């Protein structure tokens, strides 16, 4: 059962990722990312991290994707030019991607992590639920928590300043 769910979610995540890269219309790319994010949430659940899975669905699939869809609707699609500033870029880029994958796989599988081919240790029912994550977040990692909240505030203010600035011809 777990293996079936894993492979379904993995196929969804990979398909969504390939869709993001391959689709010519940015709107379909956003929809591909949506599939990818929901599949990742299933994978997070399989790794017994319920809170992160819920945050993934609410924050990413809920808020961030709506932002993307609004901006795609505002800006519009627009085809990509076939002009390549670096000759053969579209040919060499996938080769580089394959090289990154092979290198990462060798680095991970060649490492001496003994627990890598196990399912991980037995954990209690409370592993990764909101209560335990909140406890760690507010007791052990209070400073990173506050810093990330300030970062979010700065990003919100910055986005308002960026998007609200008048274009030169509009200002006159």
């Amino acid at each position, binding site marked *: 059962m777990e293996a079936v769910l894993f492979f379904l979610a993995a196929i969804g995540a990979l398909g969504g990722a390939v869709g993001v890269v391959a689709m010519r219309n940015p709107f379909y790319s956003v929809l591909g990312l949506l599939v990818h994010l929901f599949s*990742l949430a299933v994978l997070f659940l399989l790794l017994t991290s319920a809170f992160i899975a819920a945050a993934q669905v609410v924050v990413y699939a809920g808020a961030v994707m709506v932002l993307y869809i609004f901006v795609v609707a505002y800006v519009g699609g627009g085809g990509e030019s076939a002009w390549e500033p670096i000759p053969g*870029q579209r040919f060499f880029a996938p080769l580089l991607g394959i090289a990154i994958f092979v290198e990462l796989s060798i680095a991970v599988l060649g490492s001496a992590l003994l627990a*890598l081919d*196990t399912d991980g240790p037995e954990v209690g029912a409370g592993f990764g639920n909101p209560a335990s994550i909140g406890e760690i977040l507010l007791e052990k990692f209070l400073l990173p928590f506050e810093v990330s909240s300030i970062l979010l505030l700065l990003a919100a203010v910055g986005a308002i300043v960026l998007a609200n600035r008048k274009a030169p011809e509009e200002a006159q």
Partner: protein
Amino acid sequence: MSIEWYVVLSALLFAIGATGILIRRSPMVILLCLELMLNAGNLALIAFSRMVGNEEGQVFALVVMVVAACEVVIGLGLIVAIFRRRLPLNVDDLRELRG
């Protein structure tokens, strides 16, 4: 499923995202591919946190999510600003800052 599968899957997703950043020209799709790479990193973090049976990796993944949300907000703000100045939305044409 053993942890290996999750880590290899995250490496594959990371490679797909990196390929997308190299291939695509539209800044919006490049942002989407950045999301792919950050999410691949998140998957690896959570897989390793499961491997050692410690929840601190999940808190790290949560912080990565916050940073990704900030990056999206600023990036989309830039794209809207570029669009309103009627500049081309193509990273090959937006090359004035190149040294």
